[in-house]
């Protein structure tokens, strides 16, 4: 049962008032201006100049926009820059 350790972690985080991404393996999608940062990504599904799709484990984030430039791709993080038009979260992994 994978929820066992994660629920303890979540409880501890709630007690200590920690942000959830500091404790568990929760994804975080940050968009500041034209900078897009996806942390805790499981897999990069699709990437192109106008579309980035990324598996976050329990859902898929799809970012649509224009002239994306990927600054950095690592196993856990994706940093991109570009004008974001549309952001959507899809269901589980297809």
């Amino acid at each position, binding site marked *: 049962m994978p929820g066992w350790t994660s629920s303890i972690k979540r409880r501890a985080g709630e007690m200590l008032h920690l942000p959830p991404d500091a404790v568990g393996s929760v994804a975080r999608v940050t968009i500041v201006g034209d900078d897009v940062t996806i942390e805790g990504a499981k897999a990069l599904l699709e990437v192109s100049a106008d579309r980035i799709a990324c598996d976050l484990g329990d859902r898929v984030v799809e970012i649509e926009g224009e002239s994306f430039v990927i*600054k*950095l791709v690592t196993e856990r993080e994706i940093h991109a820059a570009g004008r974001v038009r549309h952001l959507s979260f899809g269901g589980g992994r297809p």
Partner: protein
Amino acid sequence: MSDSRWEWFLRGSVTLWVTGPGTRELLARLQREGVVMRDVHFTGDGVLLRTSVDGLRHLMASRRAYGVRFRVVDRHGAPFLGQRLLRRKAFAAGAVAFVAILYTLSSIVWRVEVLGAEGEDQEAELRLAAAEAGLQVGQWKSRLAPPVELAERMVARAPNFVWVGVEVKGSVAVVRGIPKIPGVPQASQQPCNIVATRPGVILDVQASRGRVMVKPHQLVQPGQVLISGLLTDRGPSVPASGHVFAEVWYTSEVSIPLRVSSQGLTGTSVSRDYLAVGGARLRVWGFQEAPPTVYERDRETEWHVGAWRLPVQWVHATLYEVKPAVWQVDVAQARDEALIMAAADVRSLAGGDMVILGQSILQERLDRGTLYATILTRVQQDIGAKAPIPDVGSSPTSQGAAQS
């Protein structure tokens, strides 16, 4: 995971131009394999990306499966830099030679700076001492003795210096010296007498060496021997020394006006500001009415453009009110003042230590509002001065001027 920039530089990275139908799927695959990519640009028919040399191996392994072709556009990092340097041997040798020459030149003393020497002679002395101690221009710094030892050697060779310090700052050696202060000349061992410099009545004789020739209450004349250096008439002679205190009389002529008029500032002031253009002044600020009599003090700016003084300057003037004051002195006050002035006069005449024994007014005359007085001041002072022993046979009480 090699994703710090420094690691990327050390291991080397490449900028790739990737084309082919499966490029985007390949990128997703590489991400899942943990390959770090940077600066991914999507263009019409391909992708420009930067990845490490390790990433390149992954790409090579899976390019067939995705039907992708790639071309290396640019290489970055240490391994490629090293290769390039190996190819340009002369350049690499030049760089190494530059560093080596710079290092060699910086380990030579290029300048010896001398501080603290007064005059060219002392500086030359210090330089010579430094050269003899092994500190000179062109010397290897590694061959120099430690500064403390250098300083010791130099101070032994420079007799006119009381202390020498050596400090090596880069390629400059700073030598700091403190010159000896010429000492007080030793008292002359030449036999001499102590003679009177002024007429006076002896009060006290304190001889530390020599034969006392006078007694208290005796009147002496200038040049008279007070303490003789001749111990016996034909015997050994010594440099006489000691103090001879005598009462000396001075007369001073003093005149004191009884009516004194002066001008004094009252403390009120008015200020004005002017713009001075050439010779003319334009009043800009301060239109208060000035007191009838004033003392004016101006403060002018010094506006310059380079060395050229501008013809336009700002002048701040302060007008202080002045009031004349007159005060009358009565004769008794004038007399007191005359005594004080006479004492000051005597103090400058006597020169050296003295004690005023008493003052008396010999004569006074009041004429047209001014008190004229002749004042006698009696002073106790040392009247002795050294003088050479005259040849045996000449008069011991010869008259002559002596330096006090």
